[in-house]
């Protein structure tokens, strides 16, 4: 009997040679989505050198459709890429659905998530620019782990400010970072003014990525050759992650399929963009009706309940402003397990696409997400990270819809990382101890009222 093929594998030589730049195909001028702070001069803290290496920035705002991946970065990618594309037959059987379900699995590298794709690229560019140390804010710790590993690969120092609730919930992430030579500081911390400010007003703060980023930025500025690196949101991060979608396109070609729906979890947007943007290009090229769906937690619903407005990327309002879907930079989400999805805003490119109707968004509560994660783990023998389980939830719902409609819908989603360091969360789920954290409307209204310069949408457009 012929074995059923369930994995679509490529060779190391098939690792993409180029990242895909969506700016070649959509008209989103940089000046329309990023803007300097109006009060920069008055506050007297202008900087005398940019934070981002010019070559990395240049490629992320240009119009070249494909940006060559530096040899040194591609060589690092080839240590674990291409990642597998898997036909989830067991999940299909468990759901008794006619849908064809595929998932791309990004958890095969040492860091355990897609974050290493951008970490290696960023560290390469920062080192080339002369940086000696990188600082960062990290939510669940996936980005911090990836940056620590990449920094060690290219021989740079690394300090990660880790959101307090994740620092407490995921001690092994801290160990992984420290094992790779990074210094890990729980945020809010007393070692920065930004952290101290939060601790003074909220001593038991569970933290947020916006606070951690503010601390990392402040710390970087205190170092002679330090720079602040971010794991999502910025154009260049989204660019680096497109290796995921580029590989998936080729792998689905091997399977003789093109997806009807592409699904990925949405933190600030690099995971979603990494899978979805190359498919958006193919949609535009072929006229395919593929739906692109971003999945966010009900506890941090920036796309589904946020506002498209100018806002800061960090809690202290130090960064330039971004036109994005946001819950407000002062929004502190509840301490849920998908720490990587707790960011208050969305990448400007993802926001612009959502505003134009090119992509969709859906939000789920924590229990239904873990239910899907557990179902997937039992069927596919792979435990997804809580962040990835959001995509699983949406994929399962699409598959159930396909069953109801008796359609062989082709579903593609990204398992952005494994959940082997999230077993305490699954343990809590199995014990029935997880809470759903839908955010009260008053909390969102309060943080939106603190948006810079105005309290209504589009005032600075």
């Amino acid at each position: 009997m012929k074995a059923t093929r369930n994995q679509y594998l490529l060779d190391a030589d098939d690792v993409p040679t180029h990242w895909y730049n969506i700016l070649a195909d959509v008209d989103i001028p940089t000046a329309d989505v990023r803007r300097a702070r109006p009060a920069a001069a008055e506050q007297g803290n202008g900087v005398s050198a940019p934070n981002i290496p010019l070559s990395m920035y240049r490629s992320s705002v240009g119009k070249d459709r494909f940006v060559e991946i530096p040899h040194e970065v591609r060589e690092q990618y080839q240590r674990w890429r291409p990642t597998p594309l898997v036909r989830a037959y067991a999940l299909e059987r468990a759901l008794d659905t006619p849908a064809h379900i595929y998932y791309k699995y990004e958890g095969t590298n040492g860091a355990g998530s897609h974050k290493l794709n951008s970490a290696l690229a960023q560290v390469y560019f920062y080192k080339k620019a002369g940086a000696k140390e990188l600082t960062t804010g990290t939510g669940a710790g996936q980005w911090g782990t990836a940056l620590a590993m990449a920094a060690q690969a290219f021989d740079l120092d690394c300090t990660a400010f880790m959101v307090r609730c994740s620092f407490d919930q995921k001690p092994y992430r801290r160990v992984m970072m420290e094992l790779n030579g990074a210094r890990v500081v729980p945020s809010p911390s007393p070692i920065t003014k930004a952290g101290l400010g939060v601790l003074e007003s909220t001593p038991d703060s569970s933290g947020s990525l916006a606070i951690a980023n503010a601390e990392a930025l402040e710390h970087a500025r205190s170092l002679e050759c330090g720079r602040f690196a971010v794991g999502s949101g910025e154009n260049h991060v989204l660019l680096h992650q497109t290796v995921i979608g580029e590989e998936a396109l080729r792998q689905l070609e091997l399977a003789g399929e093109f997806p009807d729906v592409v699904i990925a979890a949405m933190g600030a947007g690099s995971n979603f963009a990494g899978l979805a943007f190359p498919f958006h290009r193919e949609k535009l090229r072929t006229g395919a009706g593929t739906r692109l769906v971003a999945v966010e937690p009900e506890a941090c619903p920036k796309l589904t309940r946020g506002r498209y407005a100018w806002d800061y990327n960090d809690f202290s309002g130090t960064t330039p402003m971004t036109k994005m879907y946001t819950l407000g930079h002062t929004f502190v989400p509840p301490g849920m397990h998908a720490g990587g999805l707790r960011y208050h805003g969305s990448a400007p490119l993802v926001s612009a696409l959502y505003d134009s109707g090119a992509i969709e968004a859906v939000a789920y509560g924590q229990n239904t997400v873990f239910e899907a994660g557990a179902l997937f783990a039992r069927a596919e023998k792979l435990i997804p990270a809580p962040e990835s389980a959001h995509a699983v939830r949406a994929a399962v719902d699409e598959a159930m819809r396909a069953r109801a409609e008796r359609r062989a819908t082709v579903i593609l989603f990204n398992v952005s990382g494994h959940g082997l360091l999230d077993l305490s969360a699954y343990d809590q789920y199995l014990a029935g101890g997880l809470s759903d954290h839908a955010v009260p409307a008053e909390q969102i209204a309060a943080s939106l009222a603190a948006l810079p310069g105005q309290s209504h949408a589009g005032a600075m457009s």
Partner: protein
Amino acid sequence: MNGDDVANRVRKIMVDVLDLSLNPEDIGLGVSLYSPQIQLDSLHLLQLLVAVEDEFGGRIDDEDVMNADLRTVGDLVGLVRQSTAALEQA
């Protein structure tokens, strides 16, 4: 390319990119990039440098930018002069 030419072109780029309500020739080399008239930010600085590269048709080295201490318009002009000189020698 003489120094005045570089300075004039950089000042014109500044007016265009930063959308300044100033005549390029009125921007003194000693003016702070972070003064109320200019209000340069790290993001604007990158936008400015990319525009300079487009204007002069070359690439400014990452390390030169990272090591630059850009406080005045003159500092920025100096960085561009240094980069264009390197390009001409290449």
